[in-house]
């Protein structure tokens, strides 16, 4: 792909992320592993026609993105570290930074481990887990070493491998019936708040874009919305098809309805396509993991600037490896993942709000300073 080399104001001739590339990057880094059980979560917590809830969460995520966009606009492209460091002393921020780093490394490891658990359960029960984790870590290392720019280029290629799987859905149309949707909306659900949190986790990953400011072209913000829209369309498409393909109670009783959905596709040259789909999905999982590791690396790099980035990558990946080895069962991983996801949702909202309030303080201060200057 052709990418022009240019910089803001022409001063930095560093390569910057193209908006198109960025849309795909955003699309790929959202935590879609949860998509495999998303129909069940929506059915369980929201009840009948739970897939509509994705639309509401989509609006919430857009507000979250808006916060990030505001910071970029108000901060005039300064990175959040620059913004924070000018007002708040670094040592106050260290515990918060550490918390964010821990949550992000943890969430990446748990997503990786959940993927491996499902993969093992479905297809290769005899394979050792450590081998899988090792490969993920090795690939993450290769991607992280290249920095965000090379990473995003690689992720665009990975996206091209994952996306064709969506066309398999056409083969399910004969079994699809609108009557199974029922006319009831959100009936028989258990806990809307919990459900909203679960659905929100499917959109996580986007909060890392708050660190992209120094690496992007000027008009990049629309890419955030486009990437998020792409994810939402994908989620709604697959979840809505599930509601017409399965009966409501069947969704409730299937751990991974989307897996069963793809399992049912049969083409003359391919049957039980879920095998292929889920294997290819590894690339999407890899993108999610890498972006969280990258985010953690940015924070660490900012805290102690003297140490080389590769050392940080090494430390982060070792932590990730050890964390991923810890859980023993799918229930454990899901429990950990849901807690870490709640924390990540908290970070996704708290961090932009915090930076935004600092920005307001700075702007307010400037105004007062200017007025006092004027008075002199």
């Amino acid at each position, binding site marked *: 792909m052709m990418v022009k080399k240019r910089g803001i104001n022409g001063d930095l001739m560093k390569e910057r992320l193209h908006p198109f590339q960025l849309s795909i990057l955003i699309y790929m880094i959202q935590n879609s592993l949860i998509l495999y059980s998303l129909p069940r979560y929506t059915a369980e917590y929201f009840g*009948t026609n739970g897939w509509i809830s994705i639309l509401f969460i989509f609006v919430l995520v857009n507000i979250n993105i808006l916060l990030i966009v505001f910071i970029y606009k108000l901060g005039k492209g300064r990175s959040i570290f620059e913004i924070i460091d000018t007002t708040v002393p670094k040592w106050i921020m260290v515990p918060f930074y550490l918390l964010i780093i821990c949550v992000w490394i943890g969430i990446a490891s748990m997503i990786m481990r959940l993927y491996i658990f499902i993969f093992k*359960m*479905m*297809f*290769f*029960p*005899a*394979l*050792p887990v450590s*081998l899988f984790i090792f*490969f993920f870590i*090795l*690939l993450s290392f*290769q991607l992280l070493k290249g920095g965000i720019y090379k990473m995003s280029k690689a992720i665009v290629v990975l996206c091209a491998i994952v996306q064709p799987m969506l066309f398999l859905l056409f083969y399910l149309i004969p*079994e699809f019936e609108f*009557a*199974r949707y*029922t*006319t*009831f909306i959100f*009936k*028989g659900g258990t806990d809307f708040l919990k459900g909203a949190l679960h659905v929100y986790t499917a959109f996580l990953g986007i909060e890392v874009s708050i660190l992209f400011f120094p690496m992007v072209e000027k008009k990049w913000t629309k890419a955030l919305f486009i990437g998020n829209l792409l994810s939402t369309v994908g989620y709604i498409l697959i979840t809505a098809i599930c509601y017409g393909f*399965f*009966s*409501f*109670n*069947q969704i*409730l*009783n299937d751990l991974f309805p989307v897996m*069963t959905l793809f*399992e*049912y596709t*049969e083409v003359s040259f391919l*049957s*039980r396509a879920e095998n292929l789909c889920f294997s290819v999905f590894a690339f999407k999982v890899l993108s999610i993991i890498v972006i969280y590791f990258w985010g953690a690396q940015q924070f660490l790099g900012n805290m102690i600037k003297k140490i080389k980035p590769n050392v940080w990558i090494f430390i982060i990946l070792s932590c990730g490896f050890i964390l991923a080895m810890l859980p023993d069962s799918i229930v454990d991983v899901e429990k950990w993942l849901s807690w870490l996801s709640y924390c990540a949702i908290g970070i996704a909202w708290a961090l932009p709000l915090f930076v935004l309030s600092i920005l307001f303080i700075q702007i307010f201060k400037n105004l007062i300073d200017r007025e006092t200057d004027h008075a002199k």
Partner: protein
Amino acid sequence: MQNKIPVLIIICCLLLTGCRGSKVIEDLAILEAVSFDQSDSNDNPIKTTVLFPTVSKEGMAGTQFLSASGKSSHETFINLQNLTNLKLVGGQSTILFGKDLSKKGIFKIVESLSRDPEFGTRVKLAIVEGKGEELLKKKIPSIPDNAEYLYTFMEKLGTQNRILNTDKYRFLRDYYDDGIDPVLPVFTYEKDNIELKGLGTFKDDQYISLLTLSETHILNLLCGNIHNGSLMVNMVDEKTKKTNQLFLSDINSNNDKKVNKRKNKTVEIMLDLKGSVLEYTGSLDISNEKYQRQLEKQIEDYIKTNSKKLLVKLQKDQTDPIGIGTLIRNRTSYEKWKKLNWNQTYSNLNFKVNVKVDLINTGKAK
């Protein structure tokens, strides 16, 4: 480039993944058909028979049976494992249920099969009038492999007849749906052949009653739209009191259902049927347009009366393979639907069947 070597190592390692947990096909017993029957002993109520293909040293293909009893489906599999030198693995197979077991309920077995990733969602399910074990073991000279025969038989049925297109996914889907009951084809081995006897209707997961083949065809018409179907019509001539046969082929039908809430809950089923006549043994001259209209009327009456009979039978059995429940559910509020005593409502429903038949042609002959 410095990246080349690690990438090369990764690719080499990925190729090695096939070395772990390998499955040599000669050491496997890939299940082609499994049957679950009720056994005679009370301690081990389920008897499982499996059939898998074998290849002798001379290269001759054959099949082998194994039977074992146990308390649950997977316990019988473990017991079966002790009877053979091969490793039993599931495949795209046919699962048969003996009549006695299906009367008691088959959900537990189907559920445990869906826990096992080895059994795909397209596994075919069927009921056997009698014992599934005996159907699998029956020696029929023209059929070398009963399991393969059954599988292709059911695939053919699925393409011909919408309602006979059943597999694990469809069974579970209709079982879990509160507005429809599942159905499964019923096979018999009484005569010299393995033969389709009709359609078994279910209430929840229990086999209730058998619909004959002609009832199955009517049910197929009532369930949904049909493309390229066929129907045998038996008509009684009023004058001679003789039954005449008429074979309708290339049927394309449109099915529309309505619920009339006011008039004591009436469900109206409207059928619009187009087909061509390939056989007629009656006395009318069917090349004449006037008689064709008359014939259309007779076919309409036949479908109407038989549909009514079938619907009454289904109401009596309390099974709803047509999905009338779905129809009513989608026209009531959630609270009302949950409070509804469906069994009672279903038995009290009135049905009205409207049929319109158009004969497109009467075949090649005049």
